[in-house]
């Protein structure tokens, strides 16, 4: 088993992986008496596609919520870019350059696709409220720049045709894509995807995989994702964390994980005698 923690390795397809960007140290998260995450540590390196997998109720989404600040763990430390992170609120995490999508899609249903994606740029807007109201100078320049970034992302994700459509009217697969576009618009250092392919058909899954890969390749975005579909996970990710009942039972390259007996047991079930 090759140890890739600490980063600085080259992947099989020749991408350079940088230093450790995020490190979770001994995270424990409880809801009352229920332990959702039990003493889990793992890291995410710059430029990596990192997957968190596990059966239902394993605590994957809770883990993602810890990273994005929606939950604050009772024990353990979160390190980001070499600094220990104090307990934070989700909007503060977002401002640090960590964007995310949700399992159950959280979009602004009443707004158009374009407006939704534009909200992803909110953290990047610096000009004052009054100058934005009278549309002068810096504010105008900024707006133009933001629009350019957003249009590029819309092109990239091939959703030009629905730019002006209110999101509430879109089918599920496209909504997922718009949510991804909004997360990308923030130009995040770390992108968290909570089941980006849940409920999609084969064709939509292929599209989404393609987007995730080229996002990582072209924009150099570090991605951490949760996914149920094992085939997809193994194809996409550089390293995989496997969780079961709130514990980490495996961590390594897809090949390592595939051959890990504990992982096989967790997924296929094992006879207790």
């Amino acid at each position, binding site marked *: 088993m090759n140890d890739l923690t600490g980063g600085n390795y080259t992947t099989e397809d020749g991408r350079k992986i940088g230093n450790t960007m995020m490190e979770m140290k001994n995270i424990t998260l409880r809801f009352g008496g229920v332990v959702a995450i039990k003493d889990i540590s793992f890291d995410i390196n710059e430029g990596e596609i990192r997957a968190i997998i596990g059966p239902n109720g394993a605590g994957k989404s809770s883990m993602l919520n810890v990273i994005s600040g929606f939950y604050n763990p009772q024990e353990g430390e979160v390190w980001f870019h070499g600094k220990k992170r104090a307990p934070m609120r989700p909007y503060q995490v977002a401002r640090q350059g960590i964007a995310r999508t949700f399992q159950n899609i959280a979009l602004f*249903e009443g707004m158009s696709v374009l407006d939704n994606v534009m909200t992803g740029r*909110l953290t990047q807007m610096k000009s004052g409220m009054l100058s934005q109201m009278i549309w002068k100078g810096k504010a105008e320049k900024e707006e133009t720049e933001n629009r350019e970034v957003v249009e590029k992302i819309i092109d990239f994700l091939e959703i030009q045709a629905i730019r002006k459509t209110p999101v509430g009217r879109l089918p599920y697969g496209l909504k997922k894509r718009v949510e991804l576009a909004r997360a990308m618009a923030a130009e995040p250092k770390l992108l968290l995807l909570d089941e980006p392919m849940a409920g999609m058909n084969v064709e939509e899954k292929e599209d989404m995989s393609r987007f995730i890969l080229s996002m990582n390749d072209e924009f150099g975005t570090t991605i951490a994702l949760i996914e149920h579909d094992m085939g997809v996970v193994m194809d996409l990710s550089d390293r995989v964390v496997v969780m079961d009942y709130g514990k980490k039972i495996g961590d390594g390259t897809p090949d390592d994980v595939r051959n890990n007996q504990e992982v096989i047991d967790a997924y296929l079930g094992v006879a207790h005698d």
Partner: protein
Amino acid sequence: MPEQLLFAMEVTLNGLMAGVLYALVALGFVLIFKASGIFNYAQGVMALFAALTLVGIMEGQIPFAHIINAIFGTELHHFGWHVPALLAIILTAGVMVLFAWLVQRYIFQHLVNQEPIILFMATIGLAYFLEGVGDLMWGSDIKKLDVGLPQGINDWIDVTTLEALGYGFFIDNLDISATVVAVFLVAALIIFSQYTKQGRALRAVADDHQAALSVGISLNFIWVLVWSIAGFVALVAGIMWGAKSGVQFSLSLIALKALPVLMLGGFTSIPGAIVGGLIIGVGEKLFEFAIGPLVGGATENWFAYVLALLFLVFRPQGLFGEKIIERV
């Protein structure tokens, strides 16, 4: 043109002007309801409080003078200066921002994720609390509010219509300025919500809290902002009503007239609040004019509520509200 028709036209115009004031109060309700799902019963009292504070600052009244005098046996009442209207309005707006922050920090921050009815009860408490505080701070006597808006009949309209139609329209200058101010206020609000970062954030929060958090919006900040804007809208409404009929505690009852306006316009629609306000304003004036004499008058007291009731039966989501369709 027959006299009756001309008279009806005049009544309609006056109704429109009155409707603008209803719309202003309703607007404050809609803003807060949209952004936070809170039905703010205290909106009317906020208008009263803002108007009281404005008068107090303009006249150089010492806040809480009654309590201070009672405790220390002093005879304080006034600082002895007068503050110009514009400066006083700015200062009062500042007080309303402070009020918004206090409300968010000490009430609603502790009630996140509570049932709407709990939030509603909290605003009822807030309304009575604020009414009491206003009373303690500035005294309970009826005050005259004059921020320099033109008052009385508009001669130009009177003379022009008299020459053209043979019947002089009686339109109050104050109503005209209220309309102009309201139009500017609404225009500014629309520009704010469409083109500024904070406006976009506000719309985002109104739509989905979780998604808003994930794009880096602080919900607390937005809620303070929206209460501040509602406070400012209340100030404008307070100035208009105060200039018209004096600043008195019955001012807080105008909040009740905003309720039928909201039933008509829908609780989440800014255009709805405006159109609803105008319909109620015109409706009650015309109804009084046409039907009032037949039923012994005083229809203005109940017309708006009966209209709202009819809307509740036939179009519960209001004119502009979103129809609620439950997916099964």
